[in-house]
């Protein structure tokens, strides 16, 4: 009989892969929830300085101002530092308008924004002061100096 014949060559059943999509979907949802979309393309490179006493910043009220060397592909090359506001390069004089515009898009007061200064470690304090003066004029008084944690303490 056919049933009897099968008994002899009993096989290990194939591993069920039907739950594989579920596992992958779970991973997918985890990454979707835990991450944020990259909003802006960097136009300048910033060598982030290191520091010990840093805190995590709340992304919700964060406005980024970059100051670094321009990327060679875009615009002029050289040592001159360039300022990037959101997705375009700007000038120190544009900062006031930029902060006001960011406050409108985030539906917040200018005072409750935190301006994250991502400044290249090779920049000079004079340049930084110019930016800070503009921020004071714009009444954006809460700032943070972006820095990464020191690796080997």
């Amino acid at each position, binding site marked *: 009989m056919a049933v009897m014949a099968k008994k002899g060559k009993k096989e290990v059943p194939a591993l069920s*892969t*039907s739950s*594989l*999509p579920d596992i*992958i*979907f779970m*991973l*997918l949802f985890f*990454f*979707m929830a*835990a*991450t*944020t*979309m*990259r909003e802006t393309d960097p136009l300048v490179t910033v060598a982030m*300085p290191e*520091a*010990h*006493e*840093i*805190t*995590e*910043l709340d*992304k919700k009220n*964060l406005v980024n101002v970059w100051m670094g060397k321009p990327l060679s592909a875009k615009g002029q090359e050289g040592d001159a530092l360039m300022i990037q506001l959101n997705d375009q390069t700007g000038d120190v004089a544009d900062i006031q308008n930029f902060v006001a515009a960011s406050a409108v898009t985030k539906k917040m007061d200018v005072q409750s924004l*935190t301006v*994250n*200064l991502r*400044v*290249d*470690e*090779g*920049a*000079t*304090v*004079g340049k*930084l*002061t*110019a930016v*800070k*003066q503009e*921020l*004071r*004029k714009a*009444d*954006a*008084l*809460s*700032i*943070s*100096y*972006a*820095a*990464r*944690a020191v690796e080997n*303490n």
Partner: protein
Amino acid sequence: MARGKKKAGEINSSSMADIAFLLLIFFLVTTTMDVDTGMKRTLPKWVDTTEQQNDVDVNERNVLKVNVSKSGMIMVGTDEYVPNDLRRNGRHSRLSQEVYNFLTLPDRSAKKATEIDGMNYDISEGLVSLKADDETKYKIYLQVQDELTHAFNLYRDDISLKVYGKKYGELEDIQANNIRKAVPMRISEAEPNDQTKK
């Protein structure tokens, strides 16, 4: 015959995993996980240049001047240079020690009774005035800021231990807030026009 009740064929779901993988990889590539970290500061309000002359009077005794020169030399007070040594292997730098001493020692800065959680504690009114040359590199400037923050955090640890018996970093949000309010990080970043007048 079975022909009458022929069932619709099942959809092959073996490619589902591949589709999900593709989506997963797409999100992995387009997203960033990094958290923004930085050192928080509050800038002073902007005032017109005409009003700027009459600054708030702060007792000279309660101000510790920290100057950073073009080349990165750090001067504390009026005539004392401190080595530009970085904090390594958990050792405190001279700069943060100087600032910490300034805040804690009774003869260096005035103490004022401040209420924390219903009790009064003597808190230093010391202010650190940081001046840096326009040509100073940002890297050095931030290192100095780091050391100053460290000194204030050490002081907050002291106060926190007195009040709550725990270090500042281990406090709960409300308690940490109380300490932050009572011991503000009094670091003044000098105005650019201050540098012209010696």
